[in-house]
C-alpha cells in the first residue's frame, strides 16, 4: 500500500506559483542585499580596521540590508511552504536555476553589473546543469 505524499496531491499551477514566489522573492532579496553590501564596502577590510563588531555594526546599520533580508525571509517561508507540498528534487533545482537567470537580468538592470558574454554563458550553463541534476 502506498501512502499519498503531499507532493503527489499538488497541482501543476499551484507548484508553479510556489516556485515563482520563491524565485521572485529571492531575486528581490538578493539584489537588495547585494546593493546593501556594495554600499557598505569590503567587509574583510572593515573587520581588519574595526574588528568583527565593527563589521557587524556596518551591516546592521544599513537600511537597505533589512529590506533585502525581508524579501529573503519571504523567500524562505515560500520555500518551507513549497517543501511541505513538493519534493526537494523539484523545488531546489527549479528555484535555483530560475533564480540564476532572473538574478543575471536584475544584476544588469538594477546593480549595473558588467554581465558580459562570459557571465551569461555561465548562467545558462549552470541553469541547464541544475535542471539536469534534478533528473
Amino acid at each position, binding site marked *: 500500500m502506498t501512502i499519498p*505524499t*503531499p507532493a503527489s*496531491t499538488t497541482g501543476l499551477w499551484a507548484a508553479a506559483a510556489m516556485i515563482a514566489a520563491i524565485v521572485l522573492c529571492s531575486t528581490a532579496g*538578493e*539584489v537588495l*542585499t*547585494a546593493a546593501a*553590501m*556594495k554600499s*557598505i*564596502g*569590503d*567587509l*574583510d*577590510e572593515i573587520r581588519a580596521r574595526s574588528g568583527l563588531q565593527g563589521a557587524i555594526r556596518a*551591516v546592521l546599520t544599513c537600511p537597505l540590508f533589512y529590506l533585502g533580508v525581508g524579501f529573503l525571509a519571504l523567500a*524562505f*517561508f515560500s*520555500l*518551507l*511552504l513549497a*517543501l*511541505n*507540498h513538493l519534493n*526537494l528534487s523539484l523545488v*531546489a*533545482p527549479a528555484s*535555483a536555476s530560475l*533564480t*540564476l537567470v532572473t*538574478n*543575471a537580468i536584475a*544584476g*544588469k538592470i538594477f*546593480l*549595473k*553589473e*558588467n*554581465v*558580459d558574454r*562570459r*557571465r551569461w*554563458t*555561465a*548562467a*545558462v*550553463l*549552470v541553469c*541547464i*546543469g*541544475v*535542471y*539536469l*541534476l*534534478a*533528473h
Partner: protein
Amino acid sequence: MAHERLLPRQYLILGLVAVCAPLGDTCLSRGMTGLPPISPAHPATLIAAVFTPWIAFGIALLIGFFASYLTALSWADLTFVLPATAFGNVIVAFLARFWLHEPISLERWAGIALITIGVSFVAQGPSLTVRPAIEAPASERLPLEEESLAGAAEPVVPVAEEQPR
C-alpha cells in the same frame, strides 16, 4: 578596496557558501517532509515548524551560509557569486555518489559537467565590476557629481576652477 582576482581566503568563503546552502536545504526538506501538510491559511503553523530539530539545524547551516554570502557580496558581484554557489549542487551529487553510494545517471553527470564548466567560466573573469571614481562615498562627493547622479541623461563635464597651462 575590492580585488578583481580572488585571494585563497576568498575562495574559502565561496566554498562555505557552496557547502552550507545545499546541506541546509537538505535538513529543511528532511524536517518539512516529516510534518503533516501545512495550509498557507495558517502561517502560525509554518512558524512553529521552525523550532523542530531538523529545521533548526538547517537554519543554523543557512545562517552560516548567509554570513559567508554577505562577506562574498561585499567584494564580488552578485552575478559572480551566484554561479559559484551553484557548485554546491555538484558537491551534494558527489557526496550522494561516494558517501551514500547512490547511483548517478548519465544526465546528472552531464549536469555536473555543465555546472563545473559554467563556474570555471565565471571564475576566470573579474569578480567585481570596476567603475570610475564616481563610486566615492556620498559624503566625499562633489555637489556637481550628486546632480549628475540624480538623473542627468548625458555625462556632465566638471568645470575646472583653474585651467591648466
